[in-house]
């Protein structure tokens, strides 16, 4: 089997560091939410105030009684430590990846949709190909298609910056230096609610990302992200069930 270069060492190392940091942030973030699964809009919010919405979850603190008999164990201590340490790993990894990718042309070459592909139509066309399980028009074993490019650009330049921004806006010390970070979001509780929603958006990306990898060949794609090389033939497209002999 011949192989072609797929991912550079920089992309592979920063990808897996981001995976580790993001999963740690996700687990610890969920752990922190269950100590107060109520969300508010504006500057302040507490159990004496009406929430924007409230998650009917068992909680880890007795300030919230959601009707579950025994409260969840309180895991906020290590969750907070790990949340912020992982955030540092994520931010520093992202900085290295972002600066290097600007300099070496990775963004321009691999992520910005190719000329002629920068239309909504091109995106819909590729979605239709996925839905009809048609093989891609071009060999995608050494490059990203337009949907991947747009999704990765949104994650890198919209969702991660937003989740970092809304997270920093929750720091009372950081806010003392840069109050506009939280003020433009409408206040501390708005920032917390937005942080929660952007985290969900990133989680949805993760689910779809892993699902697409599973469909297109989990091990070959994962191997490519580890070794940097991919089989040069496109991964086989599963035939729809009704067409099978």
């Amino acid at each position: 089997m011949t192989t072609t270069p797929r991912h550079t060492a920089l992309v592979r190392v920063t990808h897996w560091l981001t995976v580790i940091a993001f999963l740690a942030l996700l687990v610890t973030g969920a752990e922190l939410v269950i100590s107060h699964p109520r969300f508010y809009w504006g500057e302040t919010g507490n159990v004496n105030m009406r929430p924007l919405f409230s998650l009917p979850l068992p909680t880890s603190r007795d300030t919230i009684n959601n009707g579950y008999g025994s409260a969840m164990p309180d895991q906020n201590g290590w969750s907070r430590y790990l949340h912020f340490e992982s955030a540092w790993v994520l931010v520093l990894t992202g900085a290295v990846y972002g600066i290097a990718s600007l300099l070496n042309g990775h963004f321009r070459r691999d992520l910005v949709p190719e000329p002629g592909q920068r239309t909504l139509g091109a995106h819909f066309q590729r979605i239709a190909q996925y839905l009809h399980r048609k093989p891609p028009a071009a060999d995608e074993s050494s490059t990203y298609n337009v949907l991947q490019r747009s999704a990765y650009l949104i994650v890198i330049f919209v969702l991660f910056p937003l989740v970092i921004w809304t997270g920093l806006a929750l720091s009372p010390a950081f806010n003392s230096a840069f109050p506009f970070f939280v003020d433009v979001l409408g206040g501390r509780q708005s920032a917390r609610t937005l942080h929660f929603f952007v985290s969900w958006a990133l989680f949805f990306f993760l689910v779809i990302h892993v699902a697409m990898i599973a469909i297109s060949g989990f091990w070959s794609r994962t191997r490519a992200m580890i070794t940097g090389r991919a089989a040069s033939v496109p991964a086989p497209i599963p035939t729809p069930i009704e067409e099978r002999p």
Partner: protein
Amino acid sequence: MTISRRKLITSGLATAAGVAGLTAADRIARRYGLIPPDSGTVYGPGETLTYAAQRLITRHTLAREFPRSKISEKPFGNSLAPPNETFKKLQAGGFADWRLVVDGMVNHPLSLSLADLHQMPAHSQITEVVCEEGWSYVAEWIGTPLYNVLNEADLHPETLYIVYRTIEPNLWGSIDMADAFHPQTFLTLGMNNGDLPVGFGGPLRLRVPRQLGYKSLKFVTQITATDSMKKFGKGLGSVDPEYGYSWYAGI
């Protein structure tokens, strides 16, 4: 796999530069007090980065203050543990015998009554209490900045931390000098134009508004100046790391 000589030399140099850089960073961080007392665990690097980065940008910055109209109508105070006998006795006497002892590395140890503290220059601030759980409220806090008491006690120049203890022997904390002399760090006696209610830490609470609520301890009785946290508890800076919570809570 062959490794070229150039690659070997380059990576060798990069490693050496990395080690030298980290050593230099560690030395600078120690010299300028940028390493928190609870940095000895697996979470130490993250805590040190957070504390050092925030100290570099926030040494003199003020916590956000709000207009009077933003004061929460219904502030929320965590439910308290049943008060101990000492507290009950002091409360029965209208807190007339409450004392704030100031000791440690000071030239003039003090023992201040609430009346003494009321004599000191009073300030007020309308700031937000931010609980680590996620909830918050805004209130007006009235008291005297901690630096007034520290200046009267006349600290030794080598002081690095102010330790504060409460009526509960197992509830204590500490802050660095940037927070200890910060103009919004209050020995708080009043809230929203009244006396500070017991539910919110009355008669005396230390407000540290640039950190999470758990650093603003209720029922403060003693303030100790020190140049090292090693002698206090397990040496982690406060009781919080002993329960798994970070010493620095500027997040």
